[in-house]
């Protein structure tokens, strides 16, 4: 067979991607010198001389003006549009409606019988830091050497050649948050990436996305640190509080120095720098937490130190405290039906998403799994039907928000992605049928208007370096 040729073609494709990435404008060297007057706030922080030491080098892939018409559009911003059209131009959604004239230069796609949704956003992924194959040499998701490792950044573990990235893209995922694992009370910074081929993680980083901070409740930290502590839930809580006390002192010291610039700047501490940025509101807290009572305690800790929890993840008992989540403006990132694998996951119910949503908490699906990430539409469908079975009339227009818009909010990116609205990034999935059918699959996926996945064109399939010569071409 011509497999050699095809491998070669794939390599060329990768090189094409690679060269696409090459001409980068040199990042402004944001002041390596300590004399910089006042560094801009934002990722990295005002307690740091360099607010953004690992800047995004992402550039959208080449795109063509594209009109998809005669298609059902689930906008995640309002009612679905039957027989609709959506125009993608210059990386943005340029028009949405029932009749849009095709610009002369547009690729026109007939979507009869098909559906369009926003690109799926997975707020809880370990793709890249727990890559496939799952060998020890690549196991980079948990810095399980100290219960508080606010100093680590997930992006420094992300392997862009993880074969799980292209598979997530083929499942319609266009943006994901990659988090450190849950061994630690405070696990470190997350990174938000676009699901695109790149030689470097910097080339995947979502420009302008805020960092997240991973925190974890309950069984995992106390199990991992049983010997040295914390070994109990009360030990866990003492651990969080001790870290925030340090962080608050650090923030005050740096904020004062940034005002006065008197004397030497305080000594930097990578972990406290991150925590101080949480206290300043520049980093979003994503808190792995199963049990209702523990979530209530985490909310009190956040109030004690004056930070906000953006979203609880896993939130298996979210349905028990949906009112608390709503009152505190905290998102609930949930599975459709995971449970029973440990004590704190024992009260899992399938109507969880429907209930937290009905009560008014910002509800979303999440995967925590490179398999689940490929079928988040099916997971939402399960949760939607489970809600209906429990007597909650979840509409498809509501459920689609669990898949796209609410996760965009959790990442602080709902002004850019998560819905089909004019002016938003053209992150779009064309489905073979209703995405809430188990038989439907993404046919094409665009990111920033560029066609990144086309099921009908296997030659253009994104294959990672690891797969070349290892995984069969026709697989």
């Amino acid at each position: 067979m011509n497999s050699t040729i095809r491998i070669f073609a794939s390599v060329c494709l990768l090189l094409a991607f690679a060269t696409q990435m090459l001409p980068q404008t040199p990042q402004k060297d944001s002041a390596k010198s300590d004399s910089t007057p006042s560094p801009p706030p934002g990722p990295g922080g005002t307690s740091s001389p360099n607010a953004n030491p690992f800047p995004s080098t992402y550039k959208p892939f080449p795109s063509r003006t594209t009109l998809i018409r005669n298609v059902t559009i689930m906008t995640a911003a309002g009612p679905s549009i039957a027989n609709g059209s959506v125009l993608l131009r210059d990386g943005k959604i340029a028009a949405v409606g029932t009749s849009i004239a095709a610009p002369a230069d547009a690729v026109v796609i007939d979507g009869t019988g098909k559906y369009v949704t926003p690109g799926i956003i997975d707020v809880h992924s370990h793709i890249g830091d727990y890559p496939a194959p799952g060998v020890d040499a690549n196991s980079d998701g948990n810095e399980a050497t100290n219960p508080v490792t606010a100093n680590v950044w997930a992006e420094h573990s992300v392997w862009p050649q993880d074969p799980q990235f292209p598979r997530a893209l083929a499942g319609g995922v266009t943006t994901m948050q990659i988090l450190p694992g849950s061994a630690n009370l405070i696990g470190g910074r997350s990174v938000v990436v676009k699901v695109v081929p790149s030689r470097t993680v910097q080339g995947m980083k979502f420009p302008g996305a805020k960092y997240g901070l991973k925190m974890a409740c309950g069984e995992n930290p106390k199990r991992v640190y049983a010997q040295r502590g914390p070994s109990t839930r009360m030990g866990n809580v003492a651990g969080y509080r001790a870290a925030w006390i340090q962080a608050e002192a650090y923030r005050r010291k740096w904020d004062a120095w940034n005002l006065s610039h008197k004397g030497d700047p305080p000594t930097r501490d990578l972990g406290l720098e991150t925590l101080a940025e949480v206290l300043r509101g520049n980093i979003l807290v994503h808190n792995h937490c199963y049990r209702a009572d523990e979530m209530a305690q985490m909310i009190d800790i956040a109030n004690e130190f004056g930070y906000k929890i953006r979203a609880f993840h896993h939130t298996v008992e979210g349905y028990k405290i949906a009112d608390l989540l709503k009152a505190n403006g905290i998102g609930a990132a949930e599975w459709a039906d995971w449970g029973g694998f440990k004590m704190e996951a024992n009260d899992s119910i399938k109507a969880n998403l429907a209930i937290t949503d009905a009560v008014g908490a910002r509800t979303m699906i999440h995967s925590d799994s490179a398999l689940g990430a490929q079928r988040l539409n099916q997971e939402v469908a399960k949760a939607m039907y489970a809600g209906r079975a429990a007597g909650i009339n979840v509409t498809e227009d509501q459920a689609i928000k669990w898949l796209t818009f609410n996760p965009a909010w959790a990442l602080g990116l709902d002004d850019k992605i998560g819905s089909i609205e004019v002016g938003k990034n053209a992150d779009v999935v064309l489905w073979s049928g209703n995405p809430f059918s188990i038989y439907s699959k993404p046919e094409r996926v665009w990111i920033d208007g560029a066609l990144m996945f086309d099921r009908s064109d296997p030659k253009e399939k994104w294959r990672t370096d690891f797969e070349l010569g290892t995984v069969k071409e026709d697989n």
Partner: protein
Amino acid sequence: MRKLFLSIALLIILATTALSQTIAITGGKVYPVTRPPIANGTVLIRDGVIVAVGANVNVPASAQRIDATGKIVTPGLINSITTVGLVEIGQVRETNDAAAKGNNNIAAAFKVWDGLNPASSVFAPTRAEGVTTVIITPRGGLVSGQAAAIDLANGQRSDGIRRSPVAMIAQIDDSQSAGTNSRGELMGKLRALFDDVKFYMAHRLDYDRAATKALSAPAADLEALIPVVQGRMPIMIDADRVDEIDAALALARDYNLKLMISGGAEAWLAADRLAAAHVPVLTGAMNNIPDSFARLNQRQETAAMLRRAGVQVVLVGNGDGDEARFNARNIKYEAGNAVAYGMNYDDALRAVTLTPAEVFGLSDRVG
């Protein structure tokens, strides 16, 4: 179609609850599996047994009628690799009864159903999703032990055991678990074990007098393996890499084993050999990740490709782990995804009903 799949009339026909009753399910689309679907069909059940299926069934006046208009009626689903009732909560050690300590990583005498908890809280939610029978399978080691078929009836243990044993369970894709250091050593250990079973059968009296060479397993394990080497009891061997599958086929040829393959990540690359050897494969349709070096060519089309090649396919979970216990209820999603990746609808339904019933010797009563 997903809606349809989710709204299947979940009719749990359990002997314990249906005794002395006549029930007629009418008006639904009936999938007998053994023959084409019947629109507006009737299923008549008496004393826990299906007594009539068809478009024109006389329903006795005394029968309890269940109107299935607009719904689908299927046999109860079978999930063929589970630890339902053996593992209540994965990470709570004292609720785990799926793995024997064994002897030198061999636990052939281990009857996994002796540890079944018939009060398991997992039964009811699994039933509620249409699963009426599960195979409970032992885990770990080289030879893990004996599996049984369980009806999901809470009650006394004996109420639920439909058939035991239904298969011997072994694995050849993890040499460490087998107490060896390489695949070659593992295969040698397995062959030596089967040789010893045959030796034991031929020299039982000498063995009892302690007048034989040392054998690689205690008498109880050798005894348990006799029906396996006689080809009477199936042996289900977990194998993923295509050469592991070929090694299992060679083993089966050499020892006349009634082989089934589970795992089967790369089974599509051996589809012709599996078909020729009439070896059923238990695999899933929801994993396409090269998540280990033995599963580099894992794909979602495997079940469909095997079926097309003429292999008997049983769909089981091959995803994130919980598909064997808490989410054993999700077996229908394997079938749905198998269809999405090329299997025809009737084959997918058969792969979670009649085919597992056939390969585990249950088709006289379920499937």
